[in-house]
């Protein structure tokens, strides 16, 4: 189906999707036509991903309709979505590393030849090459995917979408791991697509990109439409205000912390991912140190190495002048380090286990005598955590899976607070949680810092980094490219260091 001759006309009408414990989408409407670039913005947890999955046919809405080319559907199937010419560029990169570039781009649409349907490699490569050229990719159709950088993998995803002659391309934070020049290149491709009559739905946190390319902006907040902006109205402040629904400054109520004695000293730490880049960093009690950088800059690797998850290649870590044994989570915990991991569902929680079981998991040893668990103490801990962090749960014996993202994050936090840590590493602490919960998490971090706990916050959310941190260390390609103090903290300064 060709976009130029037959532009798409797609409308979502009052789409509602309810999950246990949360309404993901509540009567959301959105329309898009061929030749139009629509920016879809909203905070983490505003419902953007759910909306995207409704369009892709992987989530069936509970109410509402999807009207495509004049035909109304209660839900799309993935096959229908493909037939309509809807293509996705996902934020998460899942290339098939056992195939080469061509194999990935044309996966499922291999060109066959001859009697036995042999795969025609030459024809496939000839089809892929122009797409790569158009994207300005620095790799060729025959390159193995295994060696591609994150940015190149992102381009590969985009190439996949272009290869299907889509009528609607949905880009989900496509630039989060791209450098500035790569981003510019991508925005040009978006403009090209518009000229060809393709509709583009552009999801991003980087509002300046929206300002550059979008014809119209749809804002989501807490699963609801928070308003639309026409081309003339698109402006940074306006968008932020609509996304957050209140003044941003009130969200980040920063207090200056007195940096206390140094608690953590990292010296020449080398991780498996970046063995050539030793990292040296000091952390003081009572401060919040932001760790900024692009995705894949090596921030999570530092956290994992500190916490003993990944083997360390070299360097030392001292906690309060005592050498931390390497590669032992138990030793890290004993030294007073806690990690609130990046992937809450896979690393932070046992989703099917009860809230109470989750909270007590690391402190079981202290709540038992001769191996036998004191179930009263366990429940008392859960109860006091619920009060302290105001966890909204019907029952502490209910599974953690049924909590909203924000409350799940509080459970992860509760399990570590029970250990009374001296150092807490937060890895993307507010990813996928709503604005209200965000404010609570920030409040908790501030309160902990006030009590002298040293906090490291890894975050890709610029506003968060600037709004919460006392100091910010910026990483790029495994190195710390700079440390910014309060006065130097601007988005531009961070970005410049992040792409260094």
């Amino acid at each position, binding site marked *: 189906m060709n976009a130029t001759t037959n532009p798409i006309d797609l409308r979502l009408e009052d789409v509602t999707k309810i999950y*246990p414990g949360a309404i993901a989408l509540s009567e959301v409407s959105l329309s898009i036509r061929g030749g139009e670039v629509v920016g879809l913005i909203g905070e983490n947890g505003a419902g953007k991903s759910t909306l995207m999955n409704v369009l892709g046919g992987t989530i069936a809405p509970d109410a509402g309709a999807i009207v495509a080319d004049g035909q109304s559907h209660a839900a799309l199937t993935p096959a229908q979505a493909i037939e309509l010419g809807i293509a996705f560029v996902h934020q998460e990169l899942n290339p098939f590393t056992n195939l080469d570039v061509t194999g990935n781009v044309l996966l499922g649409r291999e060109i066959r030849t001859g009697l036995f349907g042999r795969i025609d490699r030459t024809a496939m490569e000839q089809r892929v090459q122009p797409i790569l050229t158009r994207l300005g990719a620095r790799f060729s159709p025959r390159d193995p995917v295994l060696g591609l950088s994150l940015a190149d993998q992102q381009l590969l995803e985009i190439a996949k979408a272009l290869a299907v002659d889509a009528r609607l391309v949905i880009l989900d934070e496509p630039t989060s791991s791209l450098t500035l020049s790569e981003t510019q290149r991508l925005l040009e491709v978006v403009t090209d697509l518009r000229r060809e009559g393709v509709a583009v739905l552009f999801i991003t946190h980087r509002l300046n990109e929206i300002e550059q390319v979008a014809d119209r902006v749809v804002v989501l907040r807490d699963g609801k439409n928070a308003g639309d902006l026409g081309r003339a109205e698109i402006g940074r402040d306006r968008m932020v205000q609509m996304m957050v629904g209140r003044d941003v400054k009130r969200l980040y109520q920063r207090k200056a912390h007195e940096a206390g004695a140094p608690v953590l000293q990292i010296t020449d730490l080398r991780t498996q991912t970046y063995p050539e880049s030793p990292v040296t960093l000091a952390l003081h009690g009572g401060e919040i140190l932001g760790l900024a950088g692009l995705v894949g800059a090596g921030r999570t690797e530092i956290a994992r190495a500190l916490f003993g*998850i990944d083997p360390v290649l070299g360097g030392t870590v001292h906690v309060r002048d005592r050498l931390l044994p390497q590669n032992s*989570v138990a030793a*890290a915990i004993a030294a007073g380090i806690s990690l609130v*991991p990046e992937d809450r569902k896979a690393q932070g929680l046992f989703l099917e286990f009860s809230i109470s079981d989750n909270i007590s998991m690391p402190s079981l040893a202290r709540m*038992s005598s001769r*191996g036998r668990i004191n179930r009263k103490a366990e429940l008392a801990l859960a109860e006091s955590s619920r009060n302290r962090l105001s966890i909204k749960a019907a029952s502490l014996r209910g599974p953690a899976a049924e909590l909203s993202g924000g409350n799940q994050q509080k459970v992860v936090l509760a399990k570590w607070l029970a250990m009374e840590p001296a150092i807490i590493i937060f890895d993307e602490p507010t990813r996928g949680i709503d604005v209200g919960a965000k404010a609570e998490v920030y409040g908790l971090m501030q309160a902990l810092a006030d009590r002298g706990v040293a906090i490291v916050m890894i975050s890709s959310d610029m506003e968060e980094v600037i709004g919460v941190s006392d100091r910010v260390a910026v990483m790029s390609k495994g190195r710390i490219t700079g440390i910014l103090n309060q006065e130097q903290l601007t988005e531009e300064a961070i970005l410049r260091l992040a792409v260094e």
Partner: protein
Amino acid sequence: MLRKDLGLATLVVTVGFVVALINPRFLSPVNLANTANLIGLFGLFSIAEAFVIVTAGIELSVGSVIALLGVLFIDMIANGVPWPVAALIVLALGAVIGLLHGWLITRLRLQPFVVTLCGLLIYRGTARFYTADGTAGFKFGSSFPTLEWLVTGRTWGVPHSAVAFLFVAVLAWFVLHRTVFGRHLFAVGKNEEAARYSGINTRRVIVSAYVICAVLTAVSAIFFAMYTRSVQPSSHGNFYELYGIAAAVLGGFSLRGGEGSIVGVCLGVILLQELQNLVNLLGIPSSLNFAVMGSVILFGVIADTQFDRYRTAKRHAATRASLGKPR
């Protein structure tokens, strides 16, 4: 007791009731004692299997270990080794096998299925080679009164295998459901990554599970060897691992790990023996034995998943109602 266990207990009682109605001999002391003996024998290694399954692993060499250690035990005693020494050696060998499996799985990162499948073949082959494919047995007329009383004897009509099973079951229940180690077993089985992030030494937990499994299997091997009094290594203990897995699955253990209860696996063992008994007592051709067992397990698992889906749907409906349905 979990709701799942309650359902299974109901099934056990119902099947028993129906069989007793059709053939009252089901409730005769002789039949009950014999069934209890079999439940005890099969229960020991089923609990062993459960410890591995809860960590999302599997142990396929149970039957072969029972054959190999059984052969060794009988041969040692027949050749004059005092039986307590022989028993200790067998238990120690069990521990070594468990350590080996655990080491291969956690250090060399091999899949449990592969490791224990190779174990199944290796131990069976070794047992057959050891006896030159003959039968290991005692010399005519030899007897070991203390050992025989301990393992195959009865107290007030209750077979000691059943007593041992009950003892092990209570201990296993305590370990799995009341101790920190038990909680760690569930945690590692449900989400190994989150377990590591919680500071649990996942490797040690997994190795321990395989050691517990193999040692319990060794205990079971001694009971089986004394029950049959002669071990034919090509057939002794064949398919027992599958029997143990079936009992665990019936008892609510998920092969994905992190789920199950000791009460459940015990009820699973009882139900399987009850079915075997049913086939015998109701005059169903014994060739249909496996077919009956398979059908009941399949039925049980289907009922269980359907019931789960129903409960999840109900919970979702409840949250939906509490959140207030938009318009």
